[in-house]
């Protein structure tokens, strides 16, 4: 820490530098204050609104229960992960372990993955409605929602898995080949287990996106406030909150839903960074 006196001396000698330093600090402070204000505002206004009626098993327009939406969110998360994780991990295995170096196919896969990760969620929503809802006759259902979200989180899963696989030292592979194992066995029994924490942190980030998604689900899984099965239309927590907030009649309940969403996201982020921390520590050791 620079002492106040020294800072004063420096500032007199280089006034411009001092000004720039001040502006930089102010901007960072601004970012932190915005985040702090947002989180604090929602927690302070929302926690008193968390009433037991909001967690009753069936939704009525009177109790505005969010429990069905929470359960649907869980189903949606599980389904999307079930679809996206095997494909994403398989694709990353191909890209890092199997593909020949400098292959045109790999470049094309990279380009399309990057494209996927930039497509806005409403475009995914439109596409999901057209393909899964209309063309495949799934209608408004949890399944069409999950298929849409699976495509949406695929690039995220692929990127984190690739990073995790790449960070496994080549020693592991050479050792395994040296003992006579084939490529498949090396990949599945040696490389993949070593990459699990990295893959998991990607999966957790994917969960975060699924939980927070609204635009892609409104016209794929729909807005029915009921605990939904695979082929039924069901609302998730974020869509539920959008409905409450935009109707303008249920501000108190919307505050409560916001608290639950915020708490979920906080937990997800903590978990992901805890796992990421574990990886870097493991690498240093």
């Amino acid at each position, binding site marked *: 820490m620079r002492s106040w006196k020294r800072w004063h001396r420096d500032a007199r000698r*280089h006034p*411009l*530098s001092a000004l*720039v*330093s001040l502006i*930089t*600090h*102010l*901007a*960072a402070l*601004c*970012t*932190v204050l*915005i*985040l702090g204000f*947002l989180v604090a*505002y*929602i927690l302070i*206004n929302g926690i008193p609104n968390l009433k037991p009626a909001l967690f009753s098993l069936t939704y009525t327009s009177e109790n505005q229960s969010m429990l069905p939406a929470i359960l649907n969110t869980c189903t949606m998360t599980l389904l999307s992960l079930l679809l996206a994780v095997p*494909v994403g991990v*398989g*694709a990353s*295995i*191909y*890209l890092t372990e*199997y593909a020949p170096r400098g292959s045109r*196919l790999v470049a*094309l*896969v990279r380009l*399309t993955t990057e*494209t*996927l990760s*930039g*497509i*806005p*969620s*409403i*475009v995914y*929503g*439109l*596409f999901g409605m*057209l393909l899964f809802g209309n063309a495949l006759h799934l209608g408004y259902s949890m399944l069409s929602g999950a298929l849409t979200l699976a*495509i949406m989180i*695929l690039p995220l899963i*692929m990127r984190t898995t690739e990073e995790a696989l790449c960070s496994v030292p080549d020693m592991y592979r050479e050792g395994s080949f040296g003992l006579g194992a*084939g*490529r498949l066995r090396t990949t599945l029994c040696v490389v993949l287990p070593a990459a699990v924490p990295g893959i998991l942190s990607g999966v957790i980030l994917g969960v975060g996106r699924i939980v*927070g998604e*609204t*635009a892609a689900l*409104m016209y794929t899984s729909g807005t029915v406030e009921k605990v939904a099965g695979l082929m039924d239309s069901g609302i998730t927590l974020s869509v539920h909150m959008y409905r409450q*907030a*935009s109707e303008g009649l249920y501000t108190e309940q*919307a*505050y409560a839903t*916001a608290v639950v969403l915020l708490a979920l*996201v906080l937990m*997800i*982020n903590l978990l992901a*960074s805890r796992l990421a921390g574990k990886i870097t520590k493991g690498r240093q050791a």
Partner: protein
Amino acid sequence: MEKNTSQALRTRLLAIREKGMALVFLLAALVSILCVGLICVFLFANGIPAMREIGVLDFLLGRTWKPGNDIYGIFPMIIGSVYVTGGALLLGVPIALLTAVYLAYFCPDGLYRLLKPAVELLAGIPSVVYGFFGIVVLVPFVRTISEPLDGKGNSIATASILLAIMILPTIIGVVEPALRAVPRSYYEGALALGATHERSVYTAVVPAAGSGILAGIVLGVGRAMGETMAVIMVAGNQARMPKGVFQGIRTLTGNIVIEMGYAAGLHREALIATGVVLFAFILIINLAFSALKRRDAA
């Protein structure tokens, strides 16, 4: 003899398994190509005919959107998206860049371990929560300050402020690593020539990270343009040409979500065509982003 054949069989089985799984992994890798292809095909196949029926120029440059009278001009929405994105960049980019510089070169280690996860959290908050925050905090705030100008709470200004907050973590997340990737010798060389810490950072390191910074901004543009729910909740959504900073506006994304629920026939196809236009915008932005990133890596 018997033993030999079973041995051979086993090796063959192993080889088949090896080949088979390689094929499975290859197929998994092809899924993302397939998805992009499907998205293009389905959007274009459903959107282009409508565009042709309305007339491409009438659709893109028409200033009136009245589905009831079969008039579909999305120019107001294109302008709306551009204004809101521009406003967000104007407000958000300076703060995001300075914060990234702070995180990379000014922040003490202990504080960094706190700030970095905080910025990541900002990126993870769902857009409905941002939108709700906009409704309860920003809309009344903007309504109060724009009262003398006869402004509305749900306006371009409100949407811009909210989007500026939302693109902060996006830009910081790309720019900070770009700044860190600049070789330490740039900074040290400037210091050795007698420049102050601030001068070294801003005149030697920041220009060297130029394309990384640009890539961050481009990614921010993509995020702002594609954001849907938060914007709908604060922008007012009037489908008309913008009348001022403190007046309501509708974006391309908003147009789709608001009317899709009850649209049918040509109206519905016009909405899908709106999605096509949005998709085209985003594709251009993405290509710019990956080109910049590749230049950065080279």
